[in-house]
């Protein structure tokens, strides 16, 4: 089975408010997939439905071949979940907690190796409540993967991180995913993070998936217009076009040769993204 998550026509309403209006998603095994969108786009609702924590209003959902609405322990054992706001088990020792939670799984990671992998060996004997924010999040990841999950959910994992901690975290995640062949589904509202980490990204906007694909595909799909600049009559000319290559070709023909000061600026992914969510809001 090469599909880890399959979602068709997923709808979710809270009372009269419709948060998800027909989400379609297909996540392949072994890929790092980000669900990107502005705050309030329905990312957390989507991920909570996939985790089996929330009942959907309508649609077909299959996570590792199971409907999360009918979660069993055997299915749960194949998932790892890392949430944003955990402050639990503050009195436990770091290692003590990892050992305790590893006991629930058939083939868990070795606690010592796991501590080393997330860079917490020095904190092994420390109380969980005394960890810094970044250390705490790394512990959450360790606890999320202790049972060797096939699919790891990360909900906004780097919110509140400084750039250095964020970089370290990205490297850790990429390494873990590569080593274990784990599928990772990550939500973020940070485009740079999605671009850096993900094999593929889906942009959730207005309760639907607006675009889905690799970063390059994404940029192309949203097709924010490019700018073409050149010098003519001693002045800079600017033209905005969805097809800059065609425009450049026409300019070359008109000039009958090189175009002075020719410059083509394709929009960055960020610009495209902002354009996209602006368009849908």
């Amino acid at each position, binding site marked *: 089975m090469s599909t880890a998550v399959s979602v068709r026509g997923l709808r979710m309403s809270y009372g009269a408010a419709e948060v998800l209006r027909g989400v379609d998603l297909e996540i392949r095994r072994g890929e790092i997939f980000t669900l990107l969108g502005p705050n309030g786009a329905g990312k*957390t*609702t989507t*991920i*909570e439905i996939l*985790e089996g*924590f*929330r009942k959907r209003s309508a649609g077909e959902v299959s996570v590792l071949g199971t409907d999360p609405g009918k979660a069993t*322990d*055997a299915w*749960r*054992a194949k*998932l790892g*979940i890392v*949430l*944003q*706001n*955990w*402050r*639990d*088990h*503050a*009195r*436990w020792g770091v290692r*003590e907690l990892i050992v*305790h*939670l590893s*006991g*629930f*799984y058939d083939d868990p990671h070795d606690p010592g190796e796991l501590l080393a992998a997330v860079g917490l060996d020095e904190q092994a004997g420390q109380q969980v409540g005394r960890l810094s924010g970044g250390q705490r999040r790394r512990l959450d990841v360790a*606890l999320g993967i202790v*049972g060797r999950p096939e699919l790891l959910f990360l*909900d906004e994992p780097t919110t509140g991180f400084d750039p250095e901690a964020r970089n370290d975290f990205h490297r850790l995640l990429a390494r873990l995913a590569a080593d274990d062949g784990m599928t990772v589904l990550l939500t973020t509202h940070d485009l740079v993070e999605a671009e850096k980490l993900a094999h593929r990204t889906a942009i959730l906007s207005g309760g639907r998936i607006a675009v889905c694909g690799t970063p390059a595909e994404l940029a192309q799909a949203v097709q924010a217009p490019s700018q073409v600049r050149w010098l003519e009559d001693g002045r800079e000319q600017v033209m905005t076009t969805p097809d800059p290559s065609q425009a450049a070709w026409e300019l070359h023909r008109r000039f009958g040769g090189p175009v002075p000061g020719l410059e083509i600026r394709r929009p960055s992914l960020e610009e495209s993204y902002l354009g996209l969510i602006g368009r849908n809001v």
Partner: protein
Amino acid sequence: MNARALRIGMKRGWTEHNHLLRTRKELLGTLIGTVGVFAALTLWMGDSTVEETGVPTITFMMVGFLAFTVFGTALMTFPMALVTDREEGTLLRLRTIPGGIPAYLAGRAVTALCQIAVQSVLIVAAGVLLGGAPLPHDWFTLAWVLLLGTVATVPLGAAIGCVLPSRNAVGVATLPLMALMFTSGVFIPVTLMPEVLQWTAQAFPLYWQGLGLRAAFLPDTMLAAEIGGSWRLPYVAAALAAWTVAGMLLAPPLIRRVTRRESGSRLAARQLAAQRS
């Protein structure tokens, strides 16, 4: 409930109990809050006796503290722990783990039992060593009343913990329990109460637990202070058993409801609300 979850849960309860023993604030709260107050009372009361019986007042008080320890741990400390676990995300963490919720509940129950056991031993030790109270003359009754009293109240505590919306609400929930403490005959003989209060007291498990424990510690000369002039042990067993059944019926659906509703966004919303207030 699978065997692995139960085993891990019991170990979890033991670990959490040890964490409590290592936490100074908790330890002082327990020791000074119950055992310390009782020890001070012991010294203050000295050799006074209950009128016309020759029974040291301190023996009567010791039994009262014992009954209240079980009651308070099961119905105040335990629900408080459940609410805290919900607010900090412990419950949600266990929800993400296969078998996590049964293990969590087993763990919490074990921690409550350990707390009750430690405090009971300390109270009896303080009463006997400092106040010269006698050891129970009926160990068997002591054992089953303590056990049944615990089993009757811990599920109720779980139910209370599930319906309390936040830690702030725990204080409000404590008030009726305090009222029960004064009317249930554990510190003031129930026959001194107006008849309405006597009937009210008999509707709750604290009265029956106190009565059973008094039967184990006090001589029959004290029976004059009891309703009907009897220890009424069969009624004690029946009342506590009835509360056990009620708790067992009430708690599981409430626990299921609370754990089912737990999710990351709820946790986030609660923490946001807590920051604002």
